[in-house]
């Protein structure tokens, strides 16, 4: 290496304390070019942001997803929110929380179940369709395996495009389900563009607040909460919700007391 080339590579080296990154995922010890960010960490950041943006804008391939999923029954409802496209979904959260007319009529047309369902499972793209495409099939398989021993009467699965968390309330009410379990893509972060969240809501009705739900977040493999662990937590919450006829803050406190290992991750 020439002297000039050597000097060029010395500018912008990580700081001596970059080894402390074993203590945190924060971007510490990045080094400096003058006082500015060196080229390598600059481009690493740009890559993480690019992946997050691509994940936000990615459209869910709902037909392919339906093929890949384990489902409680043969029919799967393909639904769409009142947000017509991705841009409307981002600008109008209220539209992402209700079904479009076609989807509502599809569910209304259904003959009411003779006995109400115990639970309706719903898969929604949310802010990361990538999370759903990467993890929904694996997670659902783990969940249904976990529930197999129990006596659960499950509604047909719903897949929703351009959907937000609260859209599960309308779907659950139309399907006359005692509770909904909604799998949704979480807002992409720089560390992961494909984290999946689960929301459990007892007695779903339009107008429920987030305080009335339980959330299990950051599910992804590898790097986040595993499918098996997510399914374990959910099965526990579902049983308790059915037994105590509630979800949300009251259930969370109980769950935290019984399962201290899970409380921090549920927060």
């Amino acid at each position: 290496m020439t002297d000039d080339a050597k000097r060029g590579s010395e500018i912008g080296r990580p700081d001596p304390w970059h080894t402390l990154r074993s203590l945190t995922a924060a971007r510490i010890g990045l080094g400096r070019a003058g006082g500015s960010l060196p080229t390598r960490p600059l481009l690493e950041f740009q890559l993480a942001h690019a992946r997050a943006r691509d994940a936000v804008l990615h459209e869910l391939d709902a037909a392919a997803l339906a093929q890949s999923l384990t489902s409680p029954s043969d029919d799967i409802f393909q639904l769409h929110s009142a947000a017509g496209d991705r841009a409307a979904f981002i600008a109008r959260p209220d539209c992402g929380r209700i079904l479009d007319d076609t989807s509502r009529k599809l569910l209304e047309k259904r003959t009411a179940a003779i006995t109400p369902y115990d639970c309706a499972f719903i898969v929604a793209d949310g802010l990361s369709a990538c999370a759903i495409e990467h993890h929904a099939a694996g997670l659902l398989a783990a969940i249904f395996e976990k529930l197999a021993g129990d006596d659960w009467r499950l509604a047909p699965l719903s897949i929703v495009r351009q959907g937000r968390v609260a859209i599960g309330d309308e779907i659950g009410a139309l399907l006359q389900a005692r509770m909904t379990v909604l799998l949704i893509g979480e807002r992409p972060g720089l560390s992961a563009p494909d984290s999946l969240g689960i929301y459990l809501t007892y007695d779903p009705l339009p107008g429920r607040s987030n305080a009335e739900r339980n959330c299990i977040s950051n599910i992804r493999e590898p790097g986040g909460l595993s499918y098996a662990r997510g399914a374990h937590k959910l099965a526990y919450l579902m049983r308790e919700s059915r037994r105590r006829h509630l979800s949300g803050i009251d259930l969370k406190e109980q769950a935290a007391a019984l399962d201290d290992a899970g409380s921090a991750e549920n927060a």
Partner: protein
Amino acid sequence: MPEFVHTVGARSHRFADLKALLAKASPARAGDRLAGIAASNAEERVAAQMALAELPLKTFLDQSVVDYDADDITRLSIDSHDTAAFGPVAHLTVGDFRNWLLAYETEAAELAAVAPGLTPEMAAAVSKIMRIQDMVLVARKISVVTRFRNTLGLPGCLSNRLQPNHPTDDVKGIAASLLDGLLYGCGDAVIGINPATDNLQQVIRLNHLLADVIATYAIPTQSCILTHVTTTMQAMAQGAPVDLVFQSIGGSEATNRSFGVTQSMLSEAAAMARALQRGSVGDNVMYFETGQGSALSANAYHGVDQQTMEVRAYGLARAFSPLLVNSVVGFIGPEYLNGREIIRAGIEDHFCGKLLGLPMGVDICYTNHADADQDDMDTLLTLLGAAGVTYIMGVPGADDIMLNYQSTSFHDALYLRQLLNLKPAPEFEDWLAAGCIVSNGITLQPAVENHRLLQLVEMDNNETLP
């Protein structure tokens, strides 16, 4: 309320009342569109701005956008209005007020003197007819100095909040980010942690951690754990070493109720913190955060546009002589502020806060579902530096791994100091020089293997707990 009419050419534009006029005059904003109160087209917006420019400033003393009887921020604003301070601008329209602000003769002393005579709605109104360069120029003239363990807001200074968050509040993880920030010359505004939970014992533990670091290394700065005001009060009652009391606030009583906050609660907390007498050069003990869209998000906006509601939050903040206020401008998401709207909103928030006499910082930030990127943040950062922003955030590599959003990095602060010859708070500048971290307040010294600050990751906080 009376209707406002403005005729442009052959067309008359009618605005039902003062809040409709303000909303229609407000520069385009996703949150106002979401609320259905924005101008329906570009011409209507400018017609509203023209009507607003002709409105006497006095109008805002006679008409409230949120009813006096229904809202304690309106009552605070009207009851504490300083008529004498208002005197020099009492005869002006909103449009003439803009001209007065820009005049050479209107300098720092005049601007400081008029502040108690201005209501939040007057500041919001004039900002709506100002361009970015107007707001940058006027904000630059204003000086707001506050003190606790150092002196913030002096002309020619740029301070920085060190924000060493960690998703599980791991003490060593926090310490690693903390020392990184200090070794990049940041942390003079405050070392402030957003804890992962509101758990009281954890909040107390983090207060001790920061107090120990500040004492051990004799750092002329202050600490804050950004938790709910009631949790901080409990921590103080249990003897925690609290420097600053933090609270998020919004522009209506109902917004603050949704945050679980009242004015009397804030007064009580401020008195408790002052009684601890932990400041060495001053006793500004409050730290507030705000952000456009919070009132709409809480469904407590009373049909008022989000920028006016934001300035009303500043009206509340100034009653408590805070050390720091900042607008977390891009955090709320693209349904309230999207893409380039974040840039103008950041400039508006800084200008309006300064005009009301507040030590304004801005969290120059965005989330991944907003149509924004690092170039947009550089634009806002540079503009705010030119406008004389009191402080910005410092997050390792601009990536907050706890709150999952992108803010400004330590490198961003160094960039702005170098570009515009801005220095940290003088006490902190001396400390950085003595520690061979930054020379002349501007230039980063070469990184060394064995800096004594590296020992702070070894500090065992548990030993110091009562």
